[in-house]
């Protein structure tokens, strides 16, 4: 419990400093606001395991790259005379639980060619722009990456 509180307090303090530009007369306000935010966050999202913050940082470049190529991919299609779309649906079984699954869905939605529409019966529902493209491995890889972030106690 204590590590979770400390991590969240650190994260929210960083956000407060980003907001106020570390103005010294905002620190008292900030302490109260961070305490309230930690309390609210513990109530909304009780810590169930540890989230590896450092490993999360390590995933940032890959995520940015995916997001960039995702944007490039739709931009190319949007500017071409014929977008070359073969849209369709695929469903994937996923072992990820809770927030990790929603995070995977959100991430897939920013990656090239895939858009998640939540889960049903333990299967992730994914809309793909081109059913002919090989996206199976990309989705599986994202799932492994997200799974490596949390560690259930």
């Amino acid at each position: 419990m204590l590590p979770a509180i400390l991590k969240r307090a650190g994260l929210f303090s960083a956000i407060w400093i980003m907001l106020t530009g570390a103005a010294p007369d905002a620190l008292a306000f900030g302490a109260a606001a961070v305490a309230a935010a930690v309390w609210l966050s513990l109530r909304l999202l009780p810590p169930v395991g540890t989230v590896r913050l450092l490993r999360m940082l390590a995933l940032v470049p890959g995520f940015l790259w995916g997001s960039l190529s995702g944007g490039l991919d739709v931009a190319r299609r949007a500017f071409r005379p014929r977008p070359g779309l073969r849209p369709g649906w695929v469903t994937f079984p996923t072992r990820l639980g809770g927030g990790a699954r929603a995070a995977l869905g959100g991430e897939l939605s920013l990656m090239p060619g895939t858009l998640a529409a939540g889960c049903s019966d333990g299967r992730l529902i994914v809309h793909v722009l081109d059913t002919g493209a090989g996206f199976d491995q990309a989705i599986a890889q994202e799932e492994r990456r997200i799974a490596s972030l949390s560690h259930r106690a």
Partner: protein
Amino acid sequence: MTLDLLRLLLTIALTGAGLVFYVAGTLGLLRFPDTFSRLHALTKADNLGLGLLALGLAFQAPGWAEVAKLALIWLLALLAAGTVAQLVARAALGRGAR
């Protein structure tokens, strides 16, 4: 080349690229044939556009506090985009929202 000129060129290049992605997102929204494909265009292109715009303008920021706030704005927009894409797609899969 002076540092100021370099910053100016970076700003122009990055913000120009950002505008291109915004336009691409809008084109996709207008041109793509079905609701879900249009949602792809919107989610990916627009947020990349905003990210590039924010990055480009960050080179003109007077201090680190503004840069940090720009980053925060982009992160919040990403969180919103990832959530909205999934929610709207799912709602459109049901009966009501088509």
